[in-house]
């Protein structure tokens, strides 16, 4: 088992159908440690299903998912998270009545965090506040203390990112983090992601905002109707006929 030199994540021929609809068909790809892989494709191409399959929220019909050389296919989500895989959700849904920083208590109560902190939880409130500051919650304006329900989308997305970071993951999967954000908001989040890469984290980003994604992604994979149709650098992938067909042939 080649854990040191092999890819961090290896997906082999993953397939899943929901009542006759092929949501994912024979998808295979690898992600190396420290890479930033982008996954793009028109609506309904199966991007979120793929994330669900990798993170254990959906059990595949066939195929394999290997993390650090270990077969994690069909594992329950909490176990996969325990190994260091974090994901964000497309539809952010925080605990609205709680202050923003209290939203992080749940991931900070995760067994993985406890283990990595040497067996004790530590001061979760303080850690939460620090994490939020890292993702841009201005400390002096005490934004972190505001009720999650009162925050605008930009902050909620950052909160979602912080929730993932709280788990101290090695692999972070971001599902449409940029959706619903203004150019300025996206511009302010990109440095945070770049910092994560510098810290050695591996990132998979599902995105519709191609321009912003291509700037930071090392590689890009294109899905259409549940199948992988292209893979490579952002610019070259957009040149491919299949990809053009997929995007122009449908309403993006």
């Amino acid at each position: 088992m080649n854990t040191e030199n092999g890819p961090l994540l290896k997906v082999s021929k993953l397939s899943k159908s929901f009542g006759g609809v092929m949501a994912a068909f024979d998808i295979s790809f690898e992600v190396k440690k420290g890479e930033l892989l982008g996954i793009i494709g028109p609506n309904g191409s199966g991007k979120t299903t793929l994330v669900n399959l990798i993170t254990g929220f959906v059990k595949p019909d066939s195929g394999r998912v290997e993390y650090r050389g270990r077969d994690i296919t069909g594992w329950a989500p909490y176990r996969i998270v325990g190994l260091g895989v974090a994901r964000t959700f497309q539809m952010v849904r925080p605990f609205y009545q709680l202050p923003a920083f209290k939203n992080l208590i749940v991931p900070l109560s995760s067994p993985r965090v406890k283990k990595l902190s040497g067996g004790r939880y530590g001061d979760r409130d303080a850690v939460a506040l620090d994490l939020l500051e890292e993702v841009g919650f201005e400390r002096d304006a005490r934004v972190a203390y505001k009720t999650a329900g009162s925050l605008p989308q930009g902050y909620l997305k950052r909160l979602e990112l912080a929730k993932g970071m709280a788990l101290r993951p090695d692999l972070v999967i971001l599902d449409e983090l940029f959706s619903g954000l203004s150019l300025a908001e996206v511009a302010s989040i990109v440095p945070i992601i770049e910092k994560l890469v510098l810290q050695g984290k591996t990132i998979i980003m599902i995105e519709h905002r191609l321009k912003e994604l291509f700037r930071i992604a090392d590689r890009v994979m294109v899905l259409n109707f549940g199948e992988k149709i292209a893979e490579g650098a952002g610019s070259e992938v957009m040149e491919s006929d299949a990809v053009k067909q997929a995007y122009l042939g449908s309403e993006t």
Partner: protein
Amino acid sequence: MEKRKERIDRGIKARSEDIFALTSWREMLYLLAPRALPVVGLLVVIPLTSAYWQEVFISTSVYALLAISWDLLISAGLVSLGQALFYGVGSYIAGSLNYYWGLGPLWTLPIATVVGGALSTVMLLPVLRLRGIYFAMVTLVLPLMFLRLVEATRILGGTEGLTGLTPFPSATFALFVVQLAVLGALFGFRRLMSSDYGLVIKGINDSDRAVMSAGINIYWRKTQVLFLGASVGAFAGAFGTHFDMFAGMPGFALDYSIMPVAAAVVGGMGTFAGPLVGAFILVPLSEVLRALGTLRIVFYGLFLVIFVVGVPEGIFHYVQRKYHQFERWVVVE
């Protein structure tokens, strides 16, 4: 001239989560009073009432235990329509230990609580993974089936039940035991749910996928909460058994299933104090209306429906709101 209601915090409660910055006796009293109320009420006032009413209040406290444990379960999203399951299981375990092996309450109570809680949890384990409706259905059906099981197989005393069991040394003793249990459950659960553990539990109720994706095994957490709630219910059953000196089919009766739900809804779900209040309103009230016999269940049922539809927040939330805020009419420009 249009007016609207404005609600303003009385401003006495300090802002921080855990630390109350107290600067005067008045503030301390303001905070202490509501907490002292149940303690004083249960441990001082009630023992001063007549023997008849003490017995009513013992019964009320037993129901209160079931109601408070029901509230714990619902905090985790588990709607129990069968608190009678826990009561009956605890009752039969304590009764059997006493009847067949001669163990006294000192032994039966703790054993029945833990074993009863564990047994009930195991029975309900498979449905923890499913939608809440399954939990409701299975908790409703199981005690009713056990009822028929006992009746048909005539085990554990059959329809007669196990009689002549060891009573408590005195009624006052029993009173204090159960009141202390109620206070313990009340303050204990409140503390638990306001801690970070409780936050996770409430998170599971709110959005289980979010908690699951935070790396927490939500089923194990639910199991823990279920065990806690079931154990308190089993304790109630064990206590009731020794108090009535009887363990039998009525332990699985619908009374024990519907009353806690009614009490919690009337009193205010999620607060633990609410179910306590609800129990202490409904049970004595139903006692006063005793002449009406089986109308009791009708009574609980109607209160339940009316409050769920009309006053879903319950009495306690309303009172709490009044206590912490004051309202005034403000002219709208």
